[in-house]
């Protein structure tokens, strides 16, 4: 946990509704996919905030909104006390240097025609940082930081394994001395032992450069190891947020309870009581009324169908949105 609770990023009522093309020609559709639907949270300097939730619940969309890779339908993203949503292009460009992303697929995210050195230097070139010679030096320095040989600068990405490519991605993300790195499933595509190496690297870099992370993952054990706090998303909303201990030892939302009960066994002898959810994630095209979870919730009441629950603070930093929480 960071010592100071200085807010680096503040997200308020963030929404992204993707328009859906109508099946009738020339008729404008008024349907939309509510991928992110009113999300609020803070990220403190130096912490790691984990984001978990079922496939399709809006995690990646939220990441892209924070970085302003896509424009929100509504809401505010404040980074170091400045609202990114209303910034002019020039200002946004220079602020965005401080927010970088690392993506899931280490194979797809590197242009195969560029050499590793060019790939890592690309952000420097785009932002016109440093001269050509000093860029080369910086690339070598970055390769060393992520534990790769500096001779690799002259090779192509296909010559590297998944773990090595993810290191290249991380070097690229570090090039502009960011303060916030959003990692979208950075280790999901990797082998267990390689995964451990990349996670160790991310932790070590965080200490070395005082980085703040938003860490999206579907592996709850990885999240526990990496994160100070976690946010649990369900269908475009954050349903629970708090420190890992708060949520793990005392989950409040029925979805969070089901999620944690679904972690695979830690040994062949463990007896697990599973809460198996019925059905699949409802479509964000027609989200259910009231609480988005009510159709699958094992303890839903009448009010859940009618009214969306508000976020209630249960202890310190722990908040949950469920009618059963007081």
């Amino acid at each position, binding site marked *: 946990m960071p010592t100071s609770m200085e807010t680096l990023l503040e997200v308020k009522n963030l929404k992204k509704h993707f328009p859906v093309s109508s099946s009738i020609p020339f008729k404008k559709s008024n349907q939309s996919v509510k991928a992110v639907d009113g999300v609020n949270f803070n990220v403190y300097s130096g912490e790691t905030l984990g984001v978990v939730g079922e*496939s399709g619940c809006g995690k990646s969309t939220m990441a892209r909104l924070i970085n302003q890779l896509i424009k929100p339908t509504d809401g505010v993203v404040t980074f170091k006390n400045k609202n990114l949503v209303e910034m002019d292009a020039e200002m946004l460009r220079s602020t965005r240097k401080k927010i970088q992303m690392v993506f899931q697929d280490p194979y797809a995210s590197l242009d195969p025609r560029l050499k590793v050195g060019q790939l890592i230097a690309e952000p420097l070139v785009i932002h016109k940082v440093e001269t050509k010679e000093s860029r080369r030096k910086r690339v070598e320095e970055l390769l060393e930081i992520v534990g790769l040989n500096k001779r690799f600068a002259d090779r192509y990405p296909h010559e590297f394994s998944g773990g090595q490519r993810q290191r290249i991605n991380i070097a690229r993300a570090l090039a502009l001395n960011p303060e916030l790195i959003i990692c979208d499933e950075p280790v999901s595509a990797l082998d267990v032992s390689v995964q451990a190496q990349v996670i160790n690297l991310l*932790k070590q870099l965080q200490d070395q450069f005082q980085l703040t992370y938003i860490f999206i993952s579907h592996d709850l*054990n990885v999240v526990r190891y990496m994160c100070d706090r976690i946010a649990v998303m369900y269908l475009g909303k954050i349903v629970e947020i708090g420190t890992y201990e708060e949520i793990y030892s005392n989950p409040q939302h029925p979805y969070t309870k089901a*999620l944690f009960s679904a972690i695979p066994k830690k040994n062949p002898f463990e007896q697990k009581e599973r809460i198996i959810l019925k059905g699949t994630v409802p479509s964000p095209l027609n989200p259910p009324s009231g609480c988005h979870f009510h159709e699958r919730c094992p303890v839903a009441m009448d009010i859940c169908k009618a009214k969306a629950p508000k976020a209630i603070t249960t202890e310190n930093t722990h908040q949950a949105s469920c009618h059963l929480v007081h």
Partner: protein
Amino acid sequence: MSESILNVKNLQVEFKSGSIITRAVNGVSFALNKNENIGIVGESGSGKSVTATSILRLIPSSSAKITGGEIILNGRDLLKLSNREMRKVRGNEISMIFQDPSTSLNPVFTVGNQLIETIRAHKKLTKKEAKQRAIELLELVGIPAPEKRINMYPHEFSGGMRQRVMIAIALACDPKILIADEPTTALDVTVQAQILNLMKDLQEKLDMSIIMITHDLGVVWEMCDQILVMYAGRVVESAKVEDLYHNPLHPYTWGLLESQITESQDSHAPLASIPGSPPDLSYEIKGCPFVDRCPYAQDICHNEAPKLIEPTEGHAVACHFQTETEKLERRENAYINGDTIRS
């Protein structure tokens, strides 16, 4: 002793590209028992998928070749069957859920079409009967409103639902053996739990054995009776899951167990991992394939390949050092945080 229904003996598979030969599978043997599940784990590229696809003889014939071994199913060697006989085995006796879902569902046909096609290829049913059966199968794998969903295309399904459709297709003809290659890796834990539950249910109903390939040991603890650890195209350890968990014998297995992040992992200590990378399988490996990464390698490991031996019944390992004291001494200082090693 339980009765085995599938016996893989000394399987060898090679890929050829120009003059380069990759020995992807190099002498793999195992037996699958009736009503039991076997889990195959091992590093990426260790030959798990190639082993599985070779059992069904579905490796790309242009570049790959099964160069040795036997695959015995009900007294017949599958490697000696004609293509026609082999087609009957696929789906009817053994079916497979492939690692890459995009290769197994055709985007231009509806889900129903693909299911009905599979059913009719194996069973003498009318179109109408096959459709009825398809709806039943979708219902069985937990797809809501199957009568409607049957007319939809794969892209209209979420990832988890597509995975269930593939399971439905694999189960269409009541196979006795199901090979599932990373069936839940792309899914989140709640959907994974749903699908594993489903597979267990079906196993009981259909009296089926499963070969489960995964990199998640949690899935193995959940589903399997036996476990096979592969490294560089070879089996380096095999045992009952309980025995492997309590008493892993191979240094690679130790590394694998230590690299898994568990609930009790201290989040201030670095994770254990296995430094280095596996050997290039296009070169001949003289000694132990793990030698470059093994913290205990001795001269003999560089020069002589360790044989798969069975120090205790039912628990096999391929490593030169297997007396109790050797093992304990060496394991004491295994990997980074030796204190987390189970005793």
